[in-house]
């Protein structure tokens, strides 16, 4: 959710500076994806709003109330009166804090009374709801609008949150959407068949061409909730409006929709059609139906400002599924026990006051009225976060809990460790292959990759690894490739834990249990098993003196830093040299390293050495040292010529020292 600093400031004139705000949001509210200074002078914060707070924080007003609550500041709804003149009574004062006025007070009759400051026309608008998925539908006809460009302040606000200005009417609905979080739709009244709205499900096979540049035609099903005029579909409820009934330059009379839809219904339709809009995103996270009243007044005020000559009709409000008032109680002891830090009553009271909770406090029990928009607060556990994050998680002192004794590891874990321990002691090296593959007995749906099956054996993967590693054998310092994997495979009936190992002679795969029985054959709960596991699992405190032959210290003590490999081909050369007996082989190794330079991979490997007495009497015996050299570049493919050149230099040097290449 993009939040404009300037827009936020219209709610909280005393909002802290950008740096301070960044810290507050990060440590007391939610993750910040970015903070960006815009060319228009504004700063925009990208808040990562997760589903629990999508009911109230996908709006500038919601974030303003949060920031104000943390700091004990007041939110000045009237501060935006430069932008939103109070033409329709003083709704902001009446509605007050974030949806805290009880829904009872906000019914349509009271709203009409407040609207008395402007003359309201009687309305002929009829609204009919034929589906339980529409909780509330408020409609108002506004006559005499002039579609045109938006004032600069609106264009700037929208620009800051990444929205393009379209026209003053559409922009006004977006200002309310991003300002207070309530989606609003405006229909061109003339495109309706009479002054009537019917909310009902689509008929299978219905089609609707949607607003927007894509010329998208939605194919509808009977599970999709639609806004209709009783004759034809006008919009997909909560998702997107139809092209035909949208606002255009000739529009003069409009119908304003402020509605509350069922989250799951909107979500299913939006998902199926693959259309996510700013409206559907808010509806599918669920919005309080109490927000509609305030939104209707805000949009009316804004339209009056944009087109002073407009005439308003009365609001028609069909409110079928009312939101219940909810209370939650908790004790300071409970909050303190969960957080592990004593939070004094005064601290709790201060936080509740700053956030304008309606609350009472009797003996140890705090009871709050859950703010209407906070659909996420359902019990005392939620108040642990509300109190804790504002109090400060940094004030909780880390404390190790008492150890729980007597419990045992799962046998499967023990067996996996024993199997791996056995195989590395037999000289096998472990690899992990992908569980996702291109053939198998069990398929997966809609994979992001080209692999759409689960492996039904480990050996197929091991064989591929064998080929790869066989070609790389010189790089691995071995001619013998011995591989193993312990992992899950999937048959038609389910999954099995398998062990597989592979080398020149063996290709074996079996279930873990069988491997343990046949190859390890020891009691998995015995003392010796315990010792083996201690060595196997522990990178530290390995007592090798006590270890048996079977134990292998898989140590990470003094871990080496990973050495990356080159993607270019390598070349190998073997070189054997006669030297007088007693000559240190290091002399040769250093020559190879000196001339090989950075192209020489790792240490030259001595793979053969032997000493031969001279047949000539009195002549010294000679020793032959044979080294294996591997050349590879991290930046290019090496050529024979350049390696030959290096080898020639080495031979020259060897001759120069009086040694003889074999």
């Amino acid at each position: 959710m993009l939040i404009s600093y300037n827009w936020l400031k219209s709610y909280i004139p005393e909002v802290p500076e950008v740096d301070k705000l960044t810290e507050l949001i990060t440590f007391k509210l939610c993750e910040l994806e970015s903070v960006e200074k815009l060319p228009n002078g504004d700063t925009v914060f990208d808040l990562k709003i997760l589903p629990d707070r999508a009911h109230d924080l996908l709006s500038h007003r919601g974030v303003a109330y949060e920031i104000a609550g943390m700091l004990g500041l007041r939110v000045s709804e009237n501060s935006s009166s430069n932008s939103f003149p109070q033409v329709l009574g003083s709704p902001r004062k009446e509605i007050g804090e974030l949806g805290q006025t009880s829904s009872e007070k906000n019914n349509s009759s009271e709203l009409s009374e407040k609207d008395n400051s402007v003359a309201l026309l009687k309305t002929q608008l009829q609204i009919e709801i034929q589906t339980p998925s529409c909780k509330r539908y408020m409609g108002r006809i506004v006559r005499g609008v002039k579609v045109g460009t938006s004032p600069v302040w609106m264009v700037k606000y929208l620009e800051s949150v990444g929205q393009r200005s379209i026209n003053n009417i559409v922009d006004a609905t977006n200002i309310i959407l991003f300002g207070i979080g309530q989606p609003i739709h405006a229909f061109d009244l003339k495109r309706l068949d009479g002054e009537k709205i019917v909310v009902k499900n689509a008929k299978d096979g219905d089609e609707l061409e949607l607003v927007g540049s894509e010329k998208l035609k939605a194919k509808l099903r009977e599970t999709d909730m639609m806004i209709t005029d009783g004759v034809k579909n006008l919009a997909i409820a909560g998702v997107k409006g139809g092209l035909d009934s949208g606002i255009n330059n000739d529009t003069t009379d409009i119908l304003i929709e402020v509605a509350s839809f069922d989250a799951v219904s909107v979500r299913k339709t939006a998902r199926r059609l693959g259309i996510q809009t700013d409206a559907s995103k808010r509806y599918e996270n669920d919005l309080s139906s109490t927000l509609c009243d305030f939104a209707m007044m805000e949009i009316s005020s804004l339209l009056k400002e944009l087109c002073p000559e407009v005439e308003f009709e009365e609001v028609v409000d069909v409110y079928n599924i009312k939101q219940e008032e909810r209370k939650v109680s908790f004790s300071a002891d409970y909050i303190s026990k969960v957080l592990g830090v004593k939070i004094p009553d005064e601290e709790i009271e201060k936080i509740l006051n700053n956030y304008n909770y309606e609350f009472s406090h009797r003996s140890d029990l705090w009871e709050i009225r859950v703010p209407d928009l906070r659909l996420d607060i359902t019990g005392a556990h939620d108040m642990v976060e509300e109190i804790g994050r504002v109090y400060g998680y940094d004030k909780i002192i880390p404390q190790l809990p008492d150890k729980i004794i007597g419990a045992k590891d799962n046998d499967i874990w023990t067996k996996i460790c024993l199997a791996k321990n056995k195989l590395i002691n037999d000289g096998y090296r472990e690899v992990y292959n992908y569980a996702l593959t291109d053939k198998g007995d069990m398929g997966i749906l809609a994979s992001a990759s080209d692999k759409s099956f689960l492996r039904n054996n480990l050996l197929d993967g091991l064989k591929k690894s064998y080929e790869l590693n066989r070609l790389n054998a010189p790089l691995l310092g071995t001619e013998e490739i011995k591989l193993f994997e312990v992992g899950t495979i999937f048959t038609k009936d389910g999954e099995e834990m398998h062990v597989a190992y592979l080398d020149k002679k063996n290709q074996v795969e079996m279930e873990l249990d069988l491997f343990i029985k046949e190859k390890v054959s020891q009691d998995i709960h015995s003392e010796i098993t315990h010792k083996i596991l201690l060595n196997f699992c522990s990178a530290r405190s390995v007592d090798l003196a006590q270890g048996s032959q079977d134990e292998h210290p898989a140590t990470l003590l003094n871990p080496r830093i990973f050495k990356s490999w080159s993607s270019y081909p390598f070349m190998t050369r073997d070189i054997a040299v006669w030297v007088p007996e007693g000559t240190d082989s290091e002399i040769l190794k250093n020559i190879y390293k000196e001339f090989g330079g950075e192209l020489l991979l790792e240490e030259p490997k001595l793979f053969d050495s032997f000493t031969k007495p001279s047949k000539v009497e009195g002549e010294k015996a000679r020793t032959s040292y044979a080294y294996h050299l591997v050349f590879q570049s991290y930046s290019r493919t090496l050529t024979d010529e350049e390696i030959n050149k290096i080898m020639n230099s080495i031979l020259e040097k060897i001759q120069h020292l009086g040694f003889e290449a074999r």
Partner: protein
Amino acid sequence: MQEDNTENKENTEEYKKGSLHPLTLIMNEAVSIMKDLGFVVEVGPELEDEWHNFDALNVPKDHPARDMQDTFFIKDKPGFVLRTHTSNTQIRYMENLVKSGGNPPFAIVVPGKVFRNESTDATHEMQFHQIEGLMIGEDVSVANMKGVLLEFFKRFFDGENVDIRLRPSFFPFVEPGFEIDLRIGEKWIELLGAGMVHPNVLKNCGIDGAKYQGFAFGIGLDRLMMMKLKIPDARFSYQGDLRLNQF
């Protein structure tokens, strides 16, 4: 040739010995520290039903919270997924505990392979490994969670100057939920999710949420491996390439 090949033999011995994949080494290391802190190891299935992977964890059907994890669904086996976290095993452990007449306190760690249906890059894989911890008792608190995690990282990044800090976050199975940053030296890194187990999750397993409370956390082992051993690409792990077994 009648040569003396002793040195040759010794060299062969040296590279005849097998080796473990670095992820196994990291997993073993993490497990051994957690065991030292009083946790025992649990193992569970990778092919899982939606109850154990989602519903029991307070992630309702058709709720945006399910989108937080891109899921692989199984073909011709409705209601089954590849587990998106090892939390399924926490649910199974608690269900079995209650079924066998047991009660908290308990503390388990679950290392294992998990799956996410997303495109891969140097830091994202379709399959990766996690270690999750769960500790429940009568008064297991956020302070205890901080204590365990701080101790874990102190030992895991032995010799480094480490600290942790909590930020508010949301995971449906915990309340409150946290993102936890780790500081190594001067630098803070966002590393893991954690929180106090949601009372609904305990209730779903038959544990009295009014009496018992505790924490859960999940750490990416691939990430720990990359950090500790300075391995630059998560994809190296699953290519069957022995050049990775350097440790």
